[in-house]
């Protein structure tokens, strides 16, 4: 369990914060007014960044395994960690800005609390206590028992087998079908590598912890605990994002939103099952938030973030690829610039970002891989 917590903290917290701080730095240098009041504030940016640690790790590993295949675990671990240290170095001056904005946020909440009546204070305390209790109860059951149940769904095991294959072969290649000669695993669909690479990353880290990357005969093995936790982690992030957007209108509306979201079995299951649904939904949701912000701010930074999240949306799933293309079309069609030249320039910039942050996979697959594999969805 301790090894899981370390892997989680490293990838989901430290790496995410490194990305977030680097983004805050560029958010500051973009032209604009008071950073707290501008659309896409620093705190909001850091919140969205908590979903970027894993996916940027997967993307970086994707390029490493393609460009420098066949190296040892330590090599990939050091290069990846060095990359995030570099991001952290770039964003180191954002730390005091982020801390200051956090303090200001807490101070404003405290001030509002002090001004309210006794009944208001009691309601406020009860409100937050309810949320904290529900969260802790969920985490208690999730970390205590749910997470220890082995994976057994067909899709998640297929993704897991692909991740194990990447780990054992230390390369990513594009062929007509995925076939592992060692154990006979075949996959004839068109998987997107992003999710599987999270297991590959975990297996690389396991080597450092001395955890055997096998579960032969022992289904209590812990080699894939981090991989199992992805669904619940991104589900909580989605809930948190929805909560914040609705809290801005009314705090009870925010609670209602959570209730409605969890009233259907499918989203509820993402908290306790293992799959990539919330992982891909998170990037789609944030890409649409960023689409909104491209109309509120005209600077290049927002376009960068929009392109990045759209690319990650495509990197995670085929539906995301289609949505990312729709994002680009919507951006090109509805942006307020009347000049065709400016529209074209920004659209090309979006396309470049989309390719860098995940769209490249589809180009390579069409050229060298299961060429028409992605068309299996359009039979």
């Amino acid at each position, binding site marked *: 369990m301790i090894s899981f917590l370390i892997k989680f903290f490293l990838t989901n917290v430290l790496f995410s914060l490194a990305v977030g701080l680097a983004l805050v730095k560029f958010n500051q240098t973009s032209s604009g007014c008071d950073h707290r009041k501008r659309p896409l504030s620093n705190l909001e940016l850091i919140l969205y960044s908590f979903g970027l640690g894993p996916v940027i790790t997967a993307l970086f590993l994707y390029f490493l395994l393609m460009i420098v295949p066949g190296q040892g675990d330590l090599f990939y671990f050091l290069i990846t960690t060095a990359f995030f240290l570099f991001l952290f170095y770039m964003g180191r001056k954002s730390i005091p800005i982020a801390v200051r904005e956090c303090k200001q946020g807490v101070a404003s909440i405290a001030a509002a609390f002090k001004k309210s009546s006794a009944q208001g204070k009691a309601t406020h305390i009860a409100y937050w206590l309810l949320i904290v209790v529900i969260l802790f109860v969920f985490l208690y*059951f999730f970390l205590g*028992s749910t997470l220890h149940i082995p994976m057994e769904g067909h899709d998640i*095991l297929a993704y897991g087998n692909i991740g194990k294959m990447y780990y054992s072969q230390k390369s990513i290649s594009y062929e007509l079908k995925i076939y592992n000669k060692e154990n006979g*695993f075949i996959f004839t669909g068109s998987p997107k590598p992003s999710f599987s690479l999270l297991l590959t990353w975990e297996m690389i880290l396991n080597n450092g912890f001395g955890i055997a990357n096998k579960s032969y005969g022992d289904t209590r093995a812990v080699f894939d605990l981090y991989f199992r936790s992805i669904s619940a982690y991104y589900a909580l992030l989605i809930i948190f994002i929805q909560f914040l957007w*609705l809290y801005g209108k009314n705090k009870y509306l925010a609670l209602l939103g959570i209730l*409605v979201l969890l*009233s259907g079995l499918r*989203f509820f299951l993402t908290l306790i099952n293992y799959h990539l649904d919330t992982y891909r939904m998170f990037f789609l949701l944030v890409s649409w938030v960023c689409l*909104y912000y491209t*109309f509120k701010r005209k600077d290049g930074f927002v376009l960068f973030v929009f392109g990045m999240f759209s690319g990650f949306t495509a990197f995670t799933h085929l539906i995301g690829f289609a949505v990312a293309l729709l994002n680009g079309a919507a951006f090109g069609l509805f942006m307020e610039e009347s000049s065709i030249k400016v529209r074209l320039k920004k659209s090309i910039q979006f396309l470049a970002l989309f390719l860098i942050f995940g769209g490249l996979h589809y180009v390579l697959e069409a050229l060298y891989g299961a060429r028409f594999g992605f068309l299996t969805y359009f039979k």
Partner: protein
Amino acid sequence: MKKAHVTVLILVLLAIAASLMLRQVYVVIDQADKTVGSVDELTAEIGTPGKRLLNGYLGMFFRFKELGNINWLLFPLALWFFITAKKRERFHLALLFVYIGSSLLIGYKGYYNSRYQMTLLPFTVTAILLLMWELLKDYNRYLKTACFMLIGVLALYNIYHYSDNFKFFIDIKTEPEKRHFPDKMLAYLNSPERDTGDTGVFVIDSPILHYYTNRKGHDTRDVNIYHITRMISRKGQGKRTAIFNSFKLSNIKYLLLTKFDLKTHRSKMLEEFVQCESELIRNAHGYCLYRMRDTALDFFGQKEGVAHIPVWQKRKKNPKRMAPLLRRFSYKGTFEFEVKRKKKVGRHMVVRNTAMDKEGRQVMNLGFEMNRRKLDIDIPVGKTVYFAVEAAAVSHVEGAAAQVRLQQPACLGSEPGCGRKGAGQRDSVGER
């Protein structure tokens, strides 16, 4: 009438209309799938025309069980949105564009899968609540509260309505003893004392084998065993022994199938092979692990002294009523039977399908004619023996019946306790 009263009256009428609509939707989506086009439609809960529409194409809005019961509110809110389109900003139109495009794509290509339909759920819920907030912002505080409380009640009702489903998943995910995981089966495959460990397993798209065991899997999609897959996939009776020999040559000793495979693979040859040439050694949580015999079954059938016993179901001289198991498993299979004595009927055989587990065993009462002058085998009362049932012909002609070829010896291969006794001897039938 005051304007406020009119508003309240309209809202109450709308609420009643909505309740009736919701009730009807629940009736349609909860109905059992009586007519199913395919197993996919059954598992996707779109087996009837109504479910195909509501759970399928419009599933993002009406698939209450999986996605909640308020998404349909997007329709009236979208209508209001279009009515006020002139006041809308460009980002509204951009988001509407991407949402409609995504919904059409998911509705058309992902309608059978609730996971795909869930893709836009967080955005949909947030959009509905924000749009409602905007719509009601100029109205009375109590009206706003009532509207949102109604949403809450709807959400709670949906959880209550499907509480069994919620409870089921909570139980299996929080109570380890209730989980659906075939750990013993996997431990069996990984056990080092099971043969040399390098024998392969035949699978039909079962990634669980590759993930948790060190066995080499031979998938039906593997070109290296295409010749075997082709033989298995043929409808009707085929070359069972040829498949057996091919498996042996490919060093495949086990078959890992799911109950879903056995129901839907529609291969009589696969069923026959599983029945005749393998033995079920593990059956847990939908997975069936079979181990192949050391020697093909037909080898024993060719030995001398094998008796042919006409068999028919239930009543004598009613050959058209072929035993259902015979019909189901291509008339071939390995069954164990015991002989019971009844006063009026005389001896009759109770036959069980050995592939089934103890709780699910099918009991097939077969009447038989035992002509002692012709038979040189005495089947003792109360004894349980094997016999192989082989149909001489797939026929419903009057007077025809399935024929039973009694194996001698009655136990097969190298099973423990197998005693070899020749035909014509009393008490010559071995026991299982």
